[in-house]
């Protein structure tokens, strides 16, 4: 005779029944404890911070204690209530419900941990910035110094942009030449392969700043016709392109090697020439493979343009350095950091967009 559960479903047998041993809910104690400790820590830090920034004791109490405790306490109390719920369900032999509640409790505890962790980190950073009567803030983030230097920095940034674009174009083209050069088949091309590899080995190893120094100061001294007449900026472009073409060559090579060899067998078997196989089959697939890492190297190159300060080119960084030396304050230099970060973010989004569009087109969305 089977017992009918209230909902009309069949009631599972009691856990004491040897033949039926339902899996226990996931333990949640450790999660709850950790979440509680971290939430307490975060709230304390918030209170410290308001002590530093806010005067009126009522506002301090509100911003430093009531608000953080309410915000951080919510997911924590949710996690706690779900654990209680799970225990009650288990006792009532609603095993599935008990396990679900425990899992939900864990999720809430994880949310709480993440939230408290972020709040704690931000609070620590803010404490560092505003401590010592705001010494850090005044040194690095002085709004007045930043705005005063900002437009000159932007103007000087044009130099960095020119150098970066020029060097990138050269490095992409020359890097491809190197990458193809080092994998040309057959005995006849052995010297070409050797030369490509030697170039990559050497120029990948030389620090960019040293190369900039050598090229920009060295070439004008040599008085070699044609080579010695250029401007400093052109030399800087050449120097950076020398380094980055070696990086790019390795990138291209990895991109080519990641393509299934069946692709070129098939393309060759159809009667395409080697050049056409490269152009229509290998390079387009490689381009897709390397777009993201290529952007990383390009961003590396953009940042390396600041190294031209060693040869006296007035780029964004060296402009900011002039300001900071006059002001006895580093805020102008912080502004350069912000500018560099700001120009890289759209590039990353753009490459993400390109890749997503390619992916979407391939799957016909």
């Amino acid at each position, binding site marked *: 005779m089977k017992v009918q559960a209230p909902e009309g479903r069949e009631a599972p047998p009691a856990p004491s029944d040897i033949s039926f041993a339902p899996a226990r809910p996931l333990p949640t104690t450790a999660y709850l404890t950790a979440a509680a400790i971290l939430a307490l820590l975060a709230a304390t830090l918030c209170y410290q911070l308001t002590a530093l920034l806010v005067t009126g004791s009522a506002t301090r109490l509100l911003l430093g204690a009531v608000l953080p405790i309410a915000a951080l306490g919510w997911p924590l109390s949710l996690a706690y209530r779900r654990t209680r719920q799970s225990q009650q369900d288990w006792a009532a032999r609603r095993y599935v419900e008990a396990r679900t509640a425990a899992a939900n409790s864990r999720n809430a505890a994880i949310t709480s941990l993440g939230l408290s962790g972020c709040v704690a980190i931000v609070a620590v950073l803010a404490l560092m910035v505003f401590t010592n009567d705001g010494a850090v803030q005044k040194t690095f983030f002085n709004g007045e110094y930043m705005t005063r230097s900002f437009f000159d920095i932007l103007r000087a940034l044009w130099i960095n942009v020119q150098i970066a674009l020029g060097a990138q174009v050269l490095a992409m083209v020359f890097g491809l030449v190197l990458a193809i050069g080092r994998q040309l088949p057959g005995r006849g091309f052995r010297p070409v392969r050797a030369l490509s590899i030697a170039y990559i080995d050497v120029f990948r190893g030389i620090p960019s700043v040293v190369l900039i120094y050598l090229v920009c100061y060295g070439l004008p001294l040599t008085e070699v016709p044609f080579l010695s007449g250029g401007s400093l900026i052109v030399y800087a472009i050449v120097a950076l392109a020398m380094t980055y073409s070696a990086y790019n060559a390795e990138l291209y090579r990895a991109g080519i090697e990641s393509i*299934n060899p*069946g*692709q070129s*067998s*098939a*393309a*060759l*078997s*159809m*009667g*395409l*020439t080697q050049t*056409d196989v490269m152009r*229509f*089959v290998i390079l*387009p*697939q490689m381009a*897709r493979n390397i777009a993201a890492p290529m952007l990383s190297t390009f961003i590396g190159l953009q940042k390396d343009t600041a190294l031209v300060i060693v040869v006296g080119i007035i780029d964004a960084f060296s402009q900011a350095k002039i300001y900071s030396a006059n002001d006895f304050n580093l805020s102008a230099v912080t502004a350069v950091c912000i500018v560099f970060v700001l120009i890289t973010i759209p590039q990353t989004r753009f490459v993400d967009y390109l890749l997503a569009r390619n992916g979407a*087109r*391939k*799957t*016909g969305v």
Partner: protein
Amino acid sequence: MSRVFIEFDTVTKRYGDLTVLDKVDLTVDRHEVVTLIGASGSGKSTLLRCVNGLENIQGGQILLNGDVVSGEGVDLVALRRRVGIVFQSYNLFPHMTVLRNCTLTPVRAGVATRAEAESNARAMLERVGLKDKADAYPDQLSGGQQQRVAIARAMLMRPQALLLDEITSALDPELVIEVLNLVRELASDGITMMMTTHEMPFAREISSKVCFLHQGTILEQGPPEQIFDSPSTPELRSFLRKIHEAGRD
């Protein structure tokens, strides 16, 4: 005009110390379908890949229509336009639509204008039953559909011979039939074919000659009835028994 179209004359192929093909003699007549059978690693794929110069050989020579096509000084591009090959793994170009996969070589080889190539390709796609897939990308197709595109792509160069390397091995059983039907049709059109397959009933039905490869040598060759019904070497008998036990005959 001689009847022989492809001729292997004591062909030897080595990878380093490993001899993969050992003095292979074989002739394929015009309009003939020759099937290579043999255990895995016996050298079937290698033999096919030697015909269109994807592998170079270390001894002997290969002749196509009486002219040597192995060794130095061969115009491989021209050779490959005469001899198409289709692989087990399709190898369609994933970044191109089906149509562009089919028109790339005819256009680049200058055998057709883009417009001609496209109308030829559409006609061929219709023939392989994929008319409405012309603008799809390869990864939107099933394995059988991809393989039919690969065959269409090879046929569009109007090759004089077609090499098929285990073109159904990567396919689910219900897709095998659609590809085999296509091959059957091409064979009845009279194209010269060399193929390797594990589909023994199909090999028996379609081939004019079956060759049994064993460790890089052709141990037996002859009409399918002779090979399948009265094998004379113990190696072939044991191979056929294994096939039978695997339920593939």
